[in-house]
């Protein structure tokens, strides 16, 4: 008998405000030049942000650099922040966009013009402490993820590796939740498809990734 689990409440440590001063109050203070208030926001979100960025770049130094750049950019844009909205998704949107821009630049640049960029090229961190099998699995999963188009991969990474809810991803990526669900389904489909192809899993006949453009339902 097949069972499909029903949606449970999401474990979500990232975008919900911790107790203490509200994010909104800290943002307001930071806007008026209170750097300590901004420091508190940084302390609240930096670990989560670094982890999320790391999922995309696979190098801790790069992830920390990008985290810093994100917080600088956010600081410069505090005046543009719509205080009727939540700070967390806005911060992550800027961080994820910065990270994707970085990855696009890196991809465009290819291998020959390393010196033109102020970001040092860094190899992915070797996952030292893990047993051999876990390493192989992670590397293999990474390879398959790279085969998935960025739009879908981003959603998959945030949902399945970082446990954001679909509504949070919608807020971070500034898309409708229906669009996120569409991308998520497509991403999981493709992951499964390419995984099966690489590992010789027999795929059902009717199982191919969709080629159609996504609908903004």
């Amino acid at each position, binding site marked *: 008998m097949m069972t499909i689990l029903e949606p449970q409440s999401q474990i979500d440590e990232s975008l919900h405000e911790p107790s203490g001063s509200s994010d909104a109050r800290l943002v307001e203070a930071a806007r008026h030049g209170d*750097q300590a208030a901004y420091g508190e926001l940084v302390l609240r979100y930096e670990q989560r942000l670094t982890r999320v960025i790391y999922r995309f770049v696979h190098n801790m130094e790069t992830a920390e650099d990008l985290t810093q750049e994100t917080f600088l950019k956010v600081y*410069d844009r505090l005046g*543009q922040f719509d205080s009727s909205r939540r700070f967390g998704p806005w911060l992550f949107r800027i961080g994820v966009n910065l990270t994707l821009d970085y990855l696009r630049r890196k991809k465009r640049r290819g291998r020959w013009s390393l010196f033109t960029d102020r970001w040092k090229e860094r190899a992915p961190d070797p996952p030292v402490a893990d047993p051999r099998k876990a390493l192989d699995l992670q590397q293999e*999963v990474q390879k398959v993820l790279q085969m998935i188009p960025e739009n879908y991969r981003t959603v998959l990474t945030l949902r399945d590796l970082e446990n954001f809810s679909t509504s949070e991803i919608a807020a971070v990526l500034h898309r409708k939740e229906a669009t996120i669900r569409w991308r998520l*389904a497509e991403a999981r*489909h493709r992951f*499964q498809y390419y995984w099966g192809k690489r590992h010789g899993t027999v795929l*059902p*006949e009717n199982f191919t990734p969709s080629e159609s453009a996504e609908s903004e339902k």
Partner: protein
Amino acid sequence: MNCKTAQRQMALAVGEDLSPVESQELQGHLQGCSNCQQTWEQQRRGFAMLQRSRTQEIHPKSDSVWPVLANRLREREVESPRGEFNGWFAALAVTAACVLVFVFSQESSFPVASQPRTGSVTGGTMVISPADLRERTSSGPQKEEVRPNRPCNSAP
């Protein structure tokens, strides 16, 4: 529910991203469709791989980026008073230019309002520090850059 829809729903179901109603509909389809049952098993396996791969703990190298970040913000603050100083010079230069233009316009027969745009050339550009130019790739708000323009622009 047809098989195509069922497959989309399965991809959501593996990660518990379906509503109870959607979930029930899918279960109804799966009970009568062996092809989709096979897909469901594949989906679950693929999803399990993804979940297993995320167990690696991610530890940032430094305790916090804030000390470095605070320094960078402070460095920029140190630069901005110099900017204001330059801004003062710019404002003085603009004011002087306006006064000169005004004096000359009094002597000539041209109306005052047609003159003062000459002063604004020196206005805005001096106050943005190189570091700011480097850092602020975004079009974020910049605090001091426009002020020196105003004395002249407001004249006409």
